[in-house]
């Protein structure tokens, strides 16, 4: 008996360290692919490894990266949020419209964020408290917020004139040569990653996503956790919206179209699972970088932009298939 026990122990040890290695490889592998891609791109195009190209690419991915932090949390909770792009647009448009209407830009910014929180509360209420599924709820919110943005602007972009320098600096300025928007993204990503590993609240999110029944039977208030998760996602989307507004000085109702799919792909490529309980901010950020590099590369190599979606789609499918194979192997093992 003792011997049998020992044996099973040994095999399970081997399995787990195998899996742990795979987990490590998951992010390491992604990092490797990114480095490889960078080498290939620098060889293929003299314009790739230039300060201006790298800066542009980083600025381009900053808002996706910020939202990806929130999306990862949503995925870890076992849900996802399709309304991120629309909330981005609505927060920018609200801020822009209020500013044009004569409000102080910072107050307008706060109200833009308040609107985002409102969207998140609605999502969270329907998903967490009523129990409507995230797909339906956030799909509705995606249309509601986008619709509201169009209504507010009557469909055409609002140009902001003479916005204070301090505000335009958020999206367009630099500190020590690094764009402020990129710095904000880095700060949010670092905080997000730390919270993901250490925050007691985010730990509850992991429990809920891993097994919501067991979570509620461990005394965790599952609906409250879900409610808060969608507020976090919405706030981050709102911040991205403000930054977009600041960067272009135009409040565009169609801003952030397609963000949700891009960001979800990135988070999933980075190891988050649609079934919940898994995912890291670090992985999601790597996913965002990978997708951005692919697009950058295609542009530099003069490949038609129409290839972008096609290739991003293939990468996502490949990443998810890999994940699925790992999961089934783990389950049947």
């Amino acid at each position: 008996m003792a011997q049998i026990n020992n044996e099973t122990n040994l095999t399970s040890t081997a399995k787990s360290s195998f899996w742990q290695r795979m987990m490590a490889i998951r992010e390491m592998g992604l990092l490797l692919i990114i480095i490889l891609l960078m080498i290939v791109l620098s060889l293929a195009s003299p314009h790739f490894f230039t300060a201006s190209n790298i800066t542009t690419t980083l600025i381009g991915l900053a808002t996706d990266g910020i939202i990806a932090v929130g999306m990862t949390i949503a995925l870890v909770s076992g849900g996802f949020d399709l309304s991120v792009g629309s909330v981005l647009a609505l927060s920018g448009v609200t801020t822009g419209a209020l500013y044009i209407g004569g409000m102080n830009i910072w107050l307008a910014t706060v109200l833009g964020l308040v609107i985002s929180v409102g969207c998140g509360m609605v999502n969270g209420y329907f998903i967490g408290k009523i129990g409507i599924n995230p797909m339906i709820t956030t799909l509705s919110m995606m249309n509601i917020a986008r619709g509201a943005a169009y209504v507010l602007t009557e469909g055409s972009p609002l140009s902001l004139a003479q916005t204070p320098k301090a505000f335009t600096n958020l999206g367009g300025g630099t500190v020590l040569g690094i764009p402020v928007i990129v710095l904000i993204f880095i700060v949010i990503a670092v905080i997000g990653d730390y919270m993901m590993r250490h925050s007691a609240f985010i730990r509850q999110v992991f429990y809920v996503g891993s097994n919501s029944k067991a979570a509620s039977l461990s005394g965790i208030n599952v609906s409250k956790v879900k409610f808060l998760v969608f507020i976090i996602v919405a706030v981050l989307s709102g911040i991205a919206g403000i930054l977009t507004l600041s960067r272009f000085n135009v409040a565009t109702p169609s801003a952030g179209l397609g963000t949700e799919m891009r960001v979800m792909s990135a988070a999933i490529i980075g190891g988050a699972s649609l079934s919940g309980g898994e995912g890291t901010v670090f992985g999601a950020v790597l996913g965002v970088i990978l997708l951005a590099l692919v697009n950058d590369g295609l542009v530099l190599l003069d490949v038609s932009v129409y290839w972008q979606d096609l290739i991003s789609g293939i990468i996502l499918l490949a990443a998810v298939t890999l994940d699925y194979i790992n999961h089934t192997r783990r389950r049947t093992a």
Partner: protein
Amino acid sequence: MPVNEVLLDVRDIVKRFPGTVALSGVSLEIFKGEIHALVGENGAGKSTLMNIIGGVLQADEGEIFWNGQKVYFADTRHAQEAGIGFVHQELSLCPDVSVAENIFMGRMPVKAGGMIDYDELYKRSSEILKTLNSNISPKKQLRELNVGEQQIVEIAKALSLNCKLLILDEPTSSLTENEVEILFRLLRSLKSQGISVLYISHRLQEIFDLCDRVTVLRDGHYIMTRLVSEVTENDLILSMVGRNIDAMYPDKSEERGQLILKISNLSHADDFKNVEFELYKGEILGFAGLIGAGRSEMARAICGIDPKDSGEIYVYDQKLNISGYGDAIRNGIGYMTEDRKEQGLFLNLEVKKNISAAKLSNIANGIFIDDDREKRLAERFVTSLNIKVSSIEQPVESLSGGNQQKVMLGKWLAIEPRILIMDEPTRGIDVGAKAEIHALMRQLAEQGVGIILISSDMPEIIGMSDRVIVMHEGCISGELSGSNITEENIMTLASGVCQTK
């Protein structure tokens, strides 16, 4: 019975599952036109045997003869085609479509072009329902029917396949008395049409009311087959449970301590009514009863997981107002669920994260988790519960059942419980781990934790409990202590044979 023509002859079936032998050499003979009861305790092998006959599982050894022909049912379809209808305890119907569509699910009559021939469908459905003396409309949506009617639809479905043997698994578990009467009338009429019925039930009275012969299984062994008219209820109970209780259970407590928990007048809907009991320090209080007797529902209501209509809960003479499970946990009441994979554990997460789950404040400094404290907490329970892991970072799904169970126990011990309700704490784990968990339970009781043990494992209830409360259909049907805790007494109270206060 004039001629005993054998319809089904199952010989020397052996079925092994990893770690256990579910059936060791079981035989069963069913005559044409008889209602044959199959009885045994939980885990006796009834479901395995049914599933083998119904083609859900395949035997490792042994033979099945159907109408004298040797057969092998590779899957349920095979068995259905031969004429075996299987009505599971959990009905497998689609609530959103009509009765007729349920009866002919997967075999819709079609017209040219692959379109469903609804006229034919309704015609054939009403013919079948007519043979069952049922006036259910075939066009009605299934969800509009009550459970009893749905069961009739299941039987109609089986009969539409031209079945010769109908297997019914606990068909009355969710029926009202009236519905049971209707079902019995239906089964007797099927019998008179020459259809055989294999009837599984925990309710012994039903067997005497309905069945012709009875076969008893125990621990995967065939015990006997008798004419129902030739046995008494006591014979059946004895042969179902007649085993010596292992001496591996720890010693029981000698004295009862202070009153810890007092429950009065606890009721909720039809789940449980007027439940009242007391729990004392240092004791293990067993709750016995059949599945569906309301034990888990009652426990969950005490903890605030499920609602209650009325009832007071006093812990150390203090009345508790529990509005949610969090309140119960803060008051030191833990409920260890019966279903560790579905409801108890976070399988993809690490051992340490599972142990800390029920009380994060144990390991948190403000809003952040202190990794060192989490590690120390996990290591403490891994050591004290002797959980075999290579590392506390290992995902729980890679552990054996017994070790998973211990991780779940660790999660509850980490809240420093005053009262721990353990629902089927050793289900599906091997003998060694079982004995370890039993020893731990007794240790906890000695340390002053009040333990409520809900178990369908008879030897466990008897071996562990200082007192046993038996529930029957939501009511407490009796309390046993000391030498009165016997299988016979428990079974008698649990099957509602005699209703004492």
